[in-house]
């Protein structure tokens, strides 16, 4: 009975854990250290080439970027149709009554634009004279791909892009070209799509002006439209025939930049990188042209010697865009993608969160009037812990790109560890155990 009482009353206490004696002692066994002095190397890389076909965006225009040079986008696309006759309600013989009217390319805005859309922009449409066939042994076209085209412009438009307010732009093409195409159909000279693409291989939308403007995106519901009519005098019937971009793999953007006079004029081969110490303590990222940043932590392995047993539990990489490098015209991307790369800039893996999803560096600019806290933050604790423990000499680095590598031309310039007012920082939290 005595023990019965004993056992009954055993677990009657509740401890909320609020009483502590000697916080110093508790911090003794496992030390938690903050380290912000680890060297970060920043460099810029020019990737060989980026696939721009099958991205479903026609990019065209040009602008001058104070940091990245003169950026230009030409877009190649092929149009086709599935029916190889003119409008026929009754019979083919009616075709003889049709009369060519005009021809135009209707470019429909998607929501993408970059740089100054208030500036007047001139676009030309040329006829491609070469077959749409990639040079290399895959089916892709790249940002540096090009096809021969006829020097004579079929149509031109000088306009102020209104990618948000308006729906589309209409580029009237040469009537002679239109009439010839009309007659091919009227006379049933083209009856298959291969006959059609042999005849009309495609178009290129070029931006030839020297003045800085913008680059604007159009979607693939853009069409080549043939206008014709039937009848004479007062009772005319008007018809149209649309040729659409049926094959997205036959549409690509050739994006180039002339970086003469910029800090990144002399970017080496893609296996190499150009240290930020040669480029104004700045690292450069630009989509479309394949310019990306590389970040390295050359001395991370020295943290191993801080303690017999120690681990990096968390690390925060804080990257600041260079002051005055961005504006309303050149807005900062919301996110930067990150890849783990080897010495030769070959992508090995991505950084992932606990559920296996790739993580990105996110822009942090909430209500900051003076731009002091505008930065990109990324958690790289696990990556650095692995790097710290690496026995071999195969150090990995991180490459930062925009989330979309090839269908935009957004860019950002990041300061390195010594860049005044835009210093890159690494905050490491380390525990001994």
């Amino acid at each position, binding site marked *: 009975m*005595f*023990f019965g*009482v*004993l*056992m*009954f*009353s*055993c*677990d*009657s*206490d*509740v*401890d*909320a*854990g*609020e*009483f*502590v*004696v*000697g*916080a*110093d*002692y*508790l*911090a*003794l*066994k*496992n*030390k*938690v*250290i*903050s*380290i912000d002095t680890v060297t970060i190397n920043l460099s810029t890389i020019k990737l060989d080439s980026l696939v721009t076909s099958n991205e479903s965006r026609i990019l065209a225009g040009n602008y001058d970027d104070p940091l990245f040079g003169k950026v230009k986008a030409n877009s190649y696309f092929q149009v086709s149709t599935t029916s190889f006759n003119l409008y026929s309600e009754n019979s083919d013989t009616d075709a003889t009554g049709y009369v060519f009217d005009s021809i135009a390319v209707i470019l429909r805005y998607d929501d993408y634009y970059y740089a100054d859309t208030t500036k007047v922009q001139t676009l030309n449409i040329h006829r491609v004279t070469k077959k749409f066939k990639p040079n290399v042994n895959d089916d892709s076209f790249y940002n540096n791909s090009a096809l021969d085209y006829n020097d004579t412009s079929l149509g031109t438009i000088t306009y102020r892009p209104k990618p948000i307010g308006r729906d589309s732009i209409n580029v009237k093409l040469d009537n002679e070209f239109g009439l010839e195409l009309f007659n091919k159909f009227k006379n049933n000279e083209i009856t298959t799509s291969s006959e059609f693409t042999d005849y009309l291989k495609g178009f290129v939308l070029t931006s030839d002006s020297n003045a800085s403007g913008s680059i604007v995106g159009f979607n693939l519901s853009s069409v080549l439209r043939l206008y014709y009519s039937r009848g004479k005098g007062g009772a005319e019937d008007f018809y149209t025939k649309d040729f659409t971009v049926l094959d997205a793999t036959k549409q690509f953007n050739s994006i180039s930049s002339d970086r003469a006079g910029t800090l990144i004029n002399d970017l080496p081969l893609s296996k190499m990188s150009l240290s930020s110490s040669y480029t104004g303590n700045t690292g450069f990222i630009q989509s479309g042209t394949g310019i990306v940043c590389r970040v390295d932590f050359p001395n991370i392995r020295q943290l191993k010697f801080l303690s017999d*047993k120690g*681990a990096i*539990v*968390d690390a*925060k990489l804080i990257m600041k865009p260079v002051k005055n490098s961005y504006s309303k015209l050149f807005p900062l991307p919301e996110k930067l993608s990150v890849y783990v790369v080897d010495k030769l800039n070959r992508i090995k893996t991505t*950084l*992932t*969160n*606990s559920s296996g999803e790739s*993580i990105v560096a996110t822009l942090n600019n909430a209500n900051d009037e003076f731009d002091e806290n505008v930065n990109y933050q990324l*958690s*790289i*604790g*696990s*990556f650095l*812990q692995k790097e710290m423990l690496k026995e071999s000499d195969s150090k990995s680095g991180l490459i930062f790109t925009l989330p979309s590598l090839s269908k935009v031309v957004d860019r950002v310039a990041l300061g390195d560890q010594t860049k005044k007012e835009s210093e890159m920082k690494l*905050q490491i*939290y380390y*525990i001994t*155990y």
Partner: protein
Amino acid sequence: MKKSCPFLVLVFFSFFVSYSQSIATSPYSLYGLGSLYEANFGLIPSLGTAGIALPSDNFINNKNAASLVNIPANNFFFEVGGKGIQSSFEDNVKKENRNNFQFSHFAFAFPINSKSAVSVAMMPYSSSSFKISGLKIPILDSSNEYYYLNVMGTGGLNNLDFSYAYKVSSKLSFGLSASVLFGNTTDNRTYEINNSVTTIDKKVSYSGIRPILGSQFKMNESLTFGLNVKSPTRVNASKIQSVSVVNETGTSTLETDKKSDTDDFYLPLEVGVGFNKSFKNKINIAFDYEKRFWDATNQSDLYGNFSDQNKFALGLSYQKSKASRNYFDRIKYATGINYDTGYLEVDNKKIEDKNFSIGVSLPLDHLSSALFVSYTYGQKGQITNSLVQENYHKLTLNLNLDGIWFVKKKLE
């Protein structure tokens, strides 16, 4: 009945091991091997824990093995004890009560012949039981950054004592004990650092044997002196640790049940002296002084900061008549005070303990079987910025069963 004795001992032993760790939490028990636990037998809790010079004539005196020679011939003492503690913890900000009831000890002792006796006792040695939630601690080398620590400590050490006592003469006796210490403490911590959580689970196992020498000298029928010397002892420690980190980029395991050596714990040299004086066979005064030489242990910082400890105990008891026919005359009343300078220093302040106790011994038969009821009120620590004051009410129930089996054996 005789055969069932070892079995009963075994049952108690296993029961004890499983329950010895349900000891009241104390914020101080995160240091060292935990809070040291005082298991006191018989009436000793009522006497301010004074007992180095007390005889073992009506309960097993665990304070001095030399006293075992006083167990009457052919008697077999069996003792179990338990404690109920209500503590209130108080610091600058808050106050909190905790109740706990725990099994304290069990022991048996019997004389081998007219000159010697033995005993076996099992009791807790220490208890490491504490909880810390969301403690904010500055990060080293940082500018104003903090991390948050949660700790849950459990476990403790047990003490299994084997004692032998020998009567050199009618005045002088010696006792020798081997105190076997064993057990483990677990310490589960989580560190919330920036956006990461690090979990460190540690289990430390301890083992050691400590020799103890005791002696009692009877000047005359009414005055006895006692001496008790506990040797400095190394308690071997080894740990098993698991470490894992969870952060935004996943979970990584740094160690899984990794065994390693850790700093051993050193028990100090302890010297205790005491006397027991009786007046007219009715009133007894017992006084103990103990010194524990912690400074000399050079304890690892891992366990905290320890310094020499002094303990003073004074007890007074009254019993009208030991052999009276009147039950109430045979009840022994006792009271005592105790002052302990403590050995643990936190922020350069020692954790003192002072208490007052009263109690009775209620005879259960005409031998020495008795129920000992003691009440102690005490105070430990103080209220400062970093310390906590613990006020406790302690009720101790010890039961001594005497000679039952041997007597029956004789009747058979």
